[in-house]
């Protein structure tokens, strides 16, 4: 082997060894730094809520290691440094000088190279290039890793809090997107066929949703979120019902005046806002033969509601979307509800219980709030009128027509008998009733018995199973009584002007009008009433256990 090759071989060998040592040292140092940061993050997350602590720790470790490796690569020594290192073994810069003049062939360069080779040969056996890692570089990462994993695994209150907070934030984000989508859907509705009042209603719906959006956005805790979510569900419900109603009105107008639908005389649309001055509200029991006919047409409309691109179709789709939002949330909480919100066409039946002219009800005029209740949408348990349910549909309940308050009874939604009304089959809109989703009673409507024999119910009969009512396991802070005075102990009273309420439309939007009472204040009354109904045999046989179980679940 000639002198040049010999020198270069040794220089490269030492260079490689040096670079390996540098790379290892820097990598270990980087790892140490990363583990130190990661441990700090985990300690912080142990004391203070920080959901992404694990991710941050791992990122810190990986990044630091990468940085260490990169620095190690950048600090790689060249051949001159390696030659200098060899000279450190007593060669007095012979090798470094020989490397500098490796290409020179003059006399002095040759002599010098030979001298360097002689010197290198003499110390060859002594040349040892340690990696110089150091015990502390090996021990430190291990200790830090143990420490980090320890804090990584250790459960703490702050960690649980962070997890919960994160979950809330995630849900809030989803809800915000959902609301944006809902607002956009309403915005996209073609308003050409709508009356001014309906346009105003749409505007109110959007404001209402925007209000919910703001509330949701400002939610910081689980409690805030749940509260906002309840309001939102309620608003969805109200809006869905209003949209359905609007869709029916539009269809009717189109049917009556297909040439010029925009000029059609607007039928007073039952708004989600209870309107005590609305004459239709008190028009209980006025169902007549005509109404029956309407009911049939309503049923048929369920199958083909108003053409594919019509405004009514848009409204129905929007209502369907609102309801789907509700049911999504409700299903999570009411998995044991047999016919919850998963009933096909359940809450989305546009012509369900919201049919103002539900003339199909066998009770006809005896059903005071049957199909004629224009404010059915506002009834949290409209279709589930307990009294109605007990009426076998034979019209023997003379008091039905005299019970106008049923429509206003929010507790009806909690009374499972609703779905058992023989007329229930004719009130497929049970699902559309706001009580369905958010109201605790809604989901409890074992309306599966829609097809009660002996009823005249036709049309959309069994479709309306309710929106999967509200949730036996869900928590509610209050009960909304849209048409009741909150301060009034008589929960069934008719609300007056509503001035006394602390909630106003401009504050809370369309879906949050009315008064609110504490949930605990009314729950007892509802329970008592349910049990009284069982004792008096007002509910269909076989349903007693369901009702009992329902109310027991709140305990």
């Amino acid at each position, binding site marked *: 082997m000639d002198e040049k090759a010999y020198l270069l071989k040794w220089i490269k060998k030492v260079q490689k060894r040096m670079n390996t040592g*540098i790379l290892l040292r820097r990598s270990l140092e980087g790892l140490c730094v990363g583990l130190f940061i990661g441990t700090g993050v985990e300690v912080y997350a142990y004391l203070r809520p920080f959901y992404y602590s694990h991710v941050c720790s791992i990122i810190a470790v990986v990044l630091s290691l990468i940085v260490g490796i990169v620095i190690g690569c950048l600090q790689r*020594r060249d051949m*001159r440094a390696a030659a*200098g290192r060899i000279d450190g073994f007593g060669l007095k*810069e012979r090798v*470094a*000088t*020989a*490397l500098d003049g490796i290409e020179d062939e003059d006399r002095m360069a040759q002599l010098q190279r030979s*001298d360097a080779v002689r010197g290198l040969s003499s110390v060859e056996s002594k040349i040892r290039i340690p990696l110089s890692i150091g015990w502390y570089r090996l021990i430190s990462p291990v200790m830090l890793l143990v420490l980090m994993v320890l804090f990584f695994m250790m459960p703490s209150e702050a960690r649980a809090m962070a997890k919960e907070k994160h979950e809330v934030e995630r849900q809030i984000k989803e809800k915000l997107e959902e609301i944006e989508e809902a607002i956009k859907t309403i915005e996209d509705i073609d308003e050409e066929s709508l009356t001014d009042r309906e346009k105003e209603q749409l505007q109110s719906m959007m404001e209402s949703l925007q209000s919910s959006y703001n509330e949701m956005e400002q939610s910081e805790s689980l409690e805030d979120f749940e509260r906002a979510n309840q309001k939102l569900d309620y608003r969805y419900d109200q809006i869905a019902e209003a949209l359905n109603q609007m869709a029916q009105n539009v269809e009717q107008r189109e049917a009556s005046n297909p040439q010029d639908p925009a000029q059609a005389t607007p039928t007073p649309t039952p708004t989600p806002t209870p309107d005590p001055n609305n004459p239709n509200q008190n028009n209980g029991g006025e169902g007549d033969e005509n109404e029956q006919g309407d009911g049939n047409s309503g049923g048929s409309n369920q199958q083909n509601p108003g053409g594919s691109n019509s405004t009514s179709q848009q409204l129905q789709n929007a209502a369907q979307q609102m309801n789907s939002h509700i049911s999504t949330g409700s299903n999570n909480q009411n998995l044991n509800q047999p016919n919850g919100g998963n009933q096909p066409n359940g809450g989305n039946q546009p012509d369900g219980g919201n049919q103002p002219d539900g003339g199909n009800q066998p009770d006809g005029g005896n059903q005071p709030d049957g199909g004629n209740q224009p404010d059915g949408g506002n009834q949290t348990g409209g279709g589930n009128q307990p009294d109605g349910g007990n009426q076998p549909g034979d019209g023997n309940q003379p008091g039905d027509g005299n019970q106008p308050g049923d429509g206003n009874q929010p507790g009806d939604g909690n009374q499972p008998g609703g779905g058992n009304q023989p007329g229930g089959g004719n009130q497929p809109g049970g699902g559309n009733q706001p009580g369905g989703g958010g109201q605790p009673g809604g989901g409890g409507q074992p309306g599966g018995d829609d097809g009660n024999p002996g009823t005249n119910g036709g049309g959309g009969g069994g479709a309306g199973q309710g929106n999967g009512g509200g949730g036996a396991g869900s928590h509610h802070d209050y009960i909304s009584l849209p048409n009741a005075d909150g301060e009034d102990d008589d929960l069934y009273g008719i609300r007056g002007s509503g001035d006394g309420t602390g909630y106003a439309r401009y504050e809370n939007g369309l879906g949050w009008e009315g008064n609110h009472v504490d949930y605990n204040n009314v729950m007892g009354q509802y329970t008592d009433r349910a049990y009284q109904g069982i004792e008096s045999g007002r509910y269909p046989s076989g349903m007693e256990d369901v009702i009992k179980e329902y109310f027991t679940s709140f305990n």
Partner: protein
Amino acid sequence: MNEYDVMQQKLLACEFEIGREIIGQRDVIRSVMLAILSGGNVLLEGMPGLGKTRLVNTISHVLNLSFKRIQFTPDLMPGDITGTNIMERNESGSAFRFEAGPIFANIILADEINRATPKTQSALLEAMQEHIVTVGNVSHKVPEPFFVLATQNPIETEGTYPLPEAQLDRFMFKIMVPFPTKEELAGIVGLTESVQQGAAQTVLNGEELQQAIQMAKEIKIADAVMDYILEIMMATHGGNKYVREGASPRAAQAIIRGAKARAFMEGRYNVSFDDVDAVVPAVLRHRLILSFDAVSDGVNEDMVVADIVKNVKAQMVAQNHV
């Protein structure tokens, strides 16, 4: 054994022969030899009676070079050094003839150089740097090899003229001649007072010395070592509160030449860091102008140079051993 090795052995023999007449002072002898091998001039500073003149005389004898001594006094004139044109009358008439001064020799001993006036001192400048003496309109080359070995007394400064910086810069080395140890002193006394005095033998001649100088110039220097020298030079120009003015580029050349000469005398073909470290004090000590802080703190040039070298070395070690 090649020609370089032969020459290196001769130089070592020279050193040995000088040591026969100069007891002790090994470092001084080595430094003077390095300066001669580098073709540089030397300023020797030491107390009277330390053998400076004898050293120079012995070197000239061992190297078989012509030697002239000039005792500098306040009334010494430049012409007394360089020589002068004198009128000479002959058969054809009269004409000027240049009468060469004592500077025309291979080795000049400028004894107590700081006692002459600056005007006279400056008469040496051209000869020291250019190896030329200009008298009137005529320039005369001095014989090669040409070395100026000057001495000065650090005490009795009254009535002296400190050498200006320009002249100091012409001296490659400033060598401090220390007082001998007791054993060395005994040897000196025994050598001078005995009947049989040591006689140094001539080893080299002028021509061989010039070859040796050329060989020393060929010694290789690694980039890392060159970088080290440059770092030292740069360090004299900033960062040290005791240095008012740093060294000139001529100092860097002197370090390189001196380091090469040392490597050659050590039998190597390349300069090492040790070679640099060995010559740096002699090269820099008369080139640094210290600040008032240094004077007030009692810091001398050698201390400042040592500090600079130490810092530069630490810096390079940190860079190389990350």
